[in-house]
């Protein structure tokens, strides 16, 4: 309101270019703000169950521990003569790349994590740092512009009305404080860009010389100009996540798109488990109960299990029998195991896929939960923290899914695995 009065007055008194330039600046600020808010900051997708299992295997081999939660694992890497520690992220199940950090607000690991900006409502990371910088830079120009013309307005008005009256009517105090805070922030980020540091690193003092004599920033290119160019004009990597993918609960998911995969893991599992929450909780309890039982051995997959055992019983639809290679297939096969009180979620699809009583399934996942094959506690594959039955099966599923099947088992497996792990890690 006051700005419009300001503009009107100045437009009449001085030149109509003032509101025009102001308008253009304002639009630019808004554009960069929206771009920063809505672009992917460089989220690292969570590891697939196979990768996570592989890493955990390596960690266990090195540690020799069989605890539920292994001690925080770090890897050391030497980059440009500087030793950098890579931390293991328990949520995303990956070793974070250097400069990446897990944002607790977004619940994702972000590459070149700068900070989570509440004003923008998004993390600022590798992919949107330049937009963020342009936002605060243009905003500082805008605030300086407005402040300058507020002052001009006061001066011009005070000739007519008197200084104090003019001062009362103008937003000069607000402008003053905004200018200092925004310009200060821009200055700080200009310094960060020129030294190729992130806010995170600066706050922690990772590369400060106070930590050690030889402590230096291994990522800096040497001169200010190169650092600035690299941060602002360098190549923009594409997003690693698929934000437009459809999350389909309880229906087969198509093969993942080639450029990035739907990997807001926890979110996905949460969404598809909103309806399965009770079941999830029950099965988690069940798994926790069975935590004492030894891990089911990870057999190498033997699809010929199906052919070799004459107690197959009934007809096996060829497609389904073959897609299930792996130890899990041996579990429900032809075994009239007694139902337990809680079904095991992790072997959900397996049981649905294999008709126990000889009738064929048309669409396994449309089968109601009544078809759940109930596993005895001995058959429950693993304690929480280790990936459940889904894991040895998972890789075969994933493979088959991406090749031959619309990954019906795969998505549910991943979801159930993540759901279980997420619940059990709470």
């Amino acid at each position: 309101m006051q700005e419009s009065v300001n503009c009107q007055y100045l437009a009449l008194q001085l030149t109509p270019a003032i509101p025009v330039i102001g308008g253009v600046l304002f639009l630019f600020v808004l554009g960069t703000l929206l771009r920063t808010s809505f672009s992917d900051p460089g989220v690292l997708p969570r590891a697939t169950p196979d990768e996570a299992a592989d890493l955990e295997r390596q960690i266990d081999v090195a540690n020799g521990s069989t605890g539920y939660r292994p001690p925080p694992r770090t890897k050391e890497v030497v980059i440009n003569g500087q030793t950098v520690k890579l931390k293991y992220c328990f949520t995303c199940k990956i070793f974070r790349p250097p400069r990446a950090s897990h944002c607790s607000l977004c619940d994702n690991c972000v590459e070149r994590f700068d900070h989570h900006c509440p004003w923008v409502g998004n993390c600022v990371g590798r992919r949107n740092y330049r937009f963020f910088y342009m936002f605060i830079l243009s905003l500082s120009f805008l605030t300086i512009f407005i402040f300058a013309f507020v002052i001009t307005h006061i001066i011009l008005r005070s000739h007519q009305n008197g200084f104090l009256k003019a001062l009362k009517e103008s937003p000069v105090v607000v402008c003053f404080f905004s200018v200092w805070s925004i310009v200060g922030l821009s200055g700080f980020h200009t310094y960060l860009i020129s030294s190729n540091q992130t806010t995170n690193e600066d706050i922690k003092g990772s590369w400060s010389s106070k930590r050690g004599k030889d402590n230096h920033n291994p990522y800096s290119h040497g001169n200010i100009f190169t650092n600035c160019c690299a941060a602002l004009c360098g190549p923009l990597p594409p997003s690693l996540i698929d934000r437009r993918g459809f999350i389909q609960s309880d229906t087969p998911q198509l093969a993942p798109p080639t450029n990035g995969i739907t990997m807001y893991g926890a979110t996905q599992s949460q969404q598809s488990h909103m309806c399965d929450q009770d079941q999830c909780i029950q099965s988690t309890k069940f798994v926790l109960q069975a935590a004492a039982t030894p891990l089911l051995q990870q057999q190498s997959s033997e699809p010929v299990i199906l052919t070799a055992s004459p107690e197959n019983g009934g007809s096996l639809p060829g497609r389904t029998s073959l897609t299930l290679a792996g130890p899990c297939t041996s579990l429900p096969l032809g075994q009239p195991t007694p139902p337990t009180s809680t079904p095991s979620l992790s072997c959900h699809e397996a049981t649905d896929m294999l008709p126990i009583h000889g009738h064929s399934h048309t669409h396994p996942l449309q089968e109601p939960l009544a078809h759940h094959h109930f596993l005895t506690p001995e058959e429950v594959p693993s304690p929480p923290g280790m990936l459940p039955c889904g894991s040895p099966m998972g890789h075969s599923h994933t493979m088959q899914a991406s090749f031959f099947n619309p990954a019906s088992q795969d998505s549910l497996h991943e979801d159930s695995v993540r759901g279980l792990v997420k619940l059990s890690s709470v």
Partner: protein
Amino acid sequence: MYFVSRKCAVVRIYQVRLQDLQQPAVSSKVFIQRDYSSGTICKFQTKFPSELESRIDKQQFEETIQTLNNLYAEAEKLGGKSYLEGCLACLTAYTIFLCMETHYEKVLKKIARYIKDQNEKIYAPRGLLLTDPIERGLRVVEITIFEDRSIGSGR
């Protein structure tokens, strides 16, 4: 070859076997992790995993990984061309990317083609499959090892 028999079980065995040939079973997966010794650029470790020893030449494998590393380095290279693209994009308020794709995306397509090519020529005959790292968030190169089927012809 489809083998007709009176016994249902045997017929099923052969049915399944025939389909087995078409859908090989996954034996295991090997993950080639990222190599961060050169900083944050995308680079994979060239260390030869022991699981592949019986399947493929060490040199062949290293060559594949090295080529991939070179391609990723090309994508992330800082140079005149990338700066020009960046500045042009900034001036057009990034609307230019509605018409053309970024240099990085172009190289990613090149990488996809290379991987497909390698799979067809070298890895598939040995019962292996390379997965494009972009499908794994550029974290790992996933190599799937298929069961070695002595029955039936090679694929």
